[in-house]
């Protein structure tokens, strides 16, 4: 069995990292344990729950369904990269706060990564589109209603800014 370490050069939230990891290390574990960015949460580890969703080259993917060496040479955004500054939230983060879109918060980072990418592609979404886009992220607390409200409010606020 092979425990050879691979060099991985990856840009995360605009910062370049060089780390070594075994091939079998999941990208979700690499982000949490090697890059020490624990905002990306790990739920089911088989691609069902969506808690580990990150942006990989700009698109939402499951970090638990990729191996760390696959990130070599690529660009990742995690939830730590969303807020424009330490004292200002991303409009969707702010809307999740204002609309009570979270209780325990475990699923929230994955939902934020999924839905910020969705809003970039669909600036004027209707409720059905929001629910469809959310379908790959499980939340066991909220019943989704407040998350849907938050996404719709964020869409409106983001349009006002433009």
């Amino acid at each position, binding site marked *: 069995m092979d425990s050879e370490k691979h060099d991985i050069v990856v840009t995360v939230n605009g910062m370049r990292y060089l780390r070594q990891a075994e*091939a*079998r290390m*999941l990208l979700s574990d690499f982000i949490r344990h090697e890059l020490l960015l624990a905002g990306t949460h790990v739920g089911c580890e*088989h691609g069902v729950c969506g808690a580990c969703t990150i942006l990989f080259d700009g*698109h939402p993917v*499951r970090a638990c*369904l990729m*191996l760390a060496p*696959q990130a070599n040479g690529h660009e990742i955004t995690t939830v730590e990269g969303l807020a424009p500054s330490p004292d200002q939230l991303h409009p969707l983060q702010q809307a999740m706060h204002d609309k009570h879109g979270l209780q325990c918060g475990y699923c929230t980072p994955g939902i934020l990564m999924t839905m910020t990418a969705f809003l970039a592609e669909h600036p004027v979404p209707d409720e059905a589109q929001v629910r469809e886009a959310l379908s*790959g992220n499980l939340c066991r607390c909220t019943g989704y209603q407040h998350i849907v409200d938050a996404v719709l409010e964020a869409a409106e606020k983001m349009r006002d800014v433009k």
Partner: protein
Amino acid sequence: MKPAPLKYMAATSLDHALRLKADYGGEASFLAGGQSLIPTMNFRLAQPAVLIDINQLSDLAGIARDGQTIHIGAMTRYRALERDPLLADALPLMTEALPHIAHPQIRNRGTLGGNLAHADPASEMPAIVVALGGRLRARSAAAERWIEARDFFVGPLTTALHDDEMLVEIELPAPVPRSGSCFMEVARRRGDFAMVGIALMLTLGKNGDCSSIRIALCGAGETPVDASDAASGLIGQPIDGEAIGDVAASVQQSIDPPGNMQASKEFQRHLAGVLVKRALRAAWERATHG
């Protein structure tokens, strides 16, 4: 929930990937989108000793039309297929099925070739390529060959590919005029595997009678189930409520669904009948009104 130790190599060209596969044979798996392979590795249901990552092989991705034939590279991601206007125009059956595949995050990464080579009988795309009568190009370091879609799937998670081969291209015929198609499935939850799904394609003759019909089901057997023969009684006949009912009954009789945790054998058979009726009506409507 973590993969077993493995050797990982990122292939830099198709030849490189095929040479590695020739060397390691059945010990090695190609890593395409990884959206089926990595979950099975996380569960340790799959423990490939070697992974040959083919994500750098951008030549293997792309959609092109050459006359009446659509060529899709094996590494084309669902994301690209979903957003491709050429595909929506040429193969509406495939476009209709794409949103049923898992969730957007999975479709951003998953590939058509990887899905077909994984050969899950409950998956949508195997049924689509069988219903469309497509063929698949396999390459090894030494040779290449074409495999008819209906011959490609030989059992659950088992294909006709040899240990040294890679599926590199999918070739699908564009439907002729006066054709209509429909994909539908029934799943317990959005994004789940279907209890049963149907891909149906029909063509009408000048007088409005059915001139050809192809049906493939997913979730209804050990491979995508080609139920076209069971529907062949409709060929040369006018399509009406009675004829549609006959086709549904004939397809129901022809299949032997496995039954699973989500749906019993009997329920799957029932669903197949309902789906045949609905999909046939929809495809007929589309063929008639373009």
